């Protein structure tokens, strides 16, 4: 199922992840799932709580962050669609570490931030049997 995001939201994510470079950054994606696409309606930056010395290649959120934003999504009638994070100076391709910590039915937007500039955003979804991520088509639409 394609992932649809506006240019404005994508630019906001890029800006956030350029600010966190050379460390990883991330946040949640709230939106709506319809027959033809999963549409991102909102992106919410969340603090990276991994050990500071490891943040150049690792990102983590607390369970409390999940709880707070899932409650917000449920109250607003939105879906907790997925999350975004950066791979500083590395391809926007999920790592084994990403896969081991992933859930199905969740959109993973990974952005390559090269030398401080966001270069590429790719969408991924974990296969139901957890064996691998599959690439999802991204539709970046005008605001």
């Amino acid at each position, binding site marked *: 199922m394609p992932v649809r995001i506006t240019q404005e939201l994508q630019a906001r994510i890029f800006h956030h992840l350029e600010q966190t470079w050379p460390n*990883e950054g*991330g946040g949640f994606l709230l939106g709506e799932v319809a027959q033809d696409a999963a549409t991102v309606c909102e992106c919410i930056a*969340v603090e990276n*709580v*991994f*050990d*500071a010395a*490891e943040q150049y*290649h*690792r*990102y*983590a*959120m*607390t*369970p409390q*962050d*999940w*709880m707070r934003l*899932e409650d917000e*999504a*449920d109250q607003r009638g939105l*879906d*907790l669609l997925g*999350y975004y*994070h950066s*791979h*500083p100076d*590395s*391809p926007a*391709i*999920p*790592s*084994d*570490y*990403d896969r*081991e*910590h*992933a*859930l*199905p*039915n*969740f959109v*993973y937007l*990974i952005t390559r931030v090269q030398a401080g500039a966001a270069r590429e955003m790719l969408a991924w979804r974990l296969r*139901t*049997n*957890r064996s691998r991520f599959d690439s999802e088509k991204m539709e970046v639409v005008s605001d």
Partner: protein
Amino acid sequence: MVTIRIPSPLRAYTGEQAVVEVDGATIGAALEDLTARYPELRQHLYEGQELRNFVNVFLGEEDIRFLDGLDTGLDAGDSLRIIPSIAGGRAGCESAPSLRQE
């Protein structure tokens, strides 16, 4: 009966129910009953017989790691919640997840 709140991505395996009722005198028993009722959940919650390290279970507001873990006793009407810890990172490092201490 106790209730378990299911994280959004896994509701596809509970018929889109956000909250399900299960039986169990302990948290471990309640989770076993959950995965017996909804078998597709199991591979995403467990690795072998152990909960995956990114799967957190809360009893009310309390992380069960700070209680008696899966042996924590339950009373009728208790509310459990399953919360994934989101983590990610680029390739090239094999370190274990490590959250900053508050």
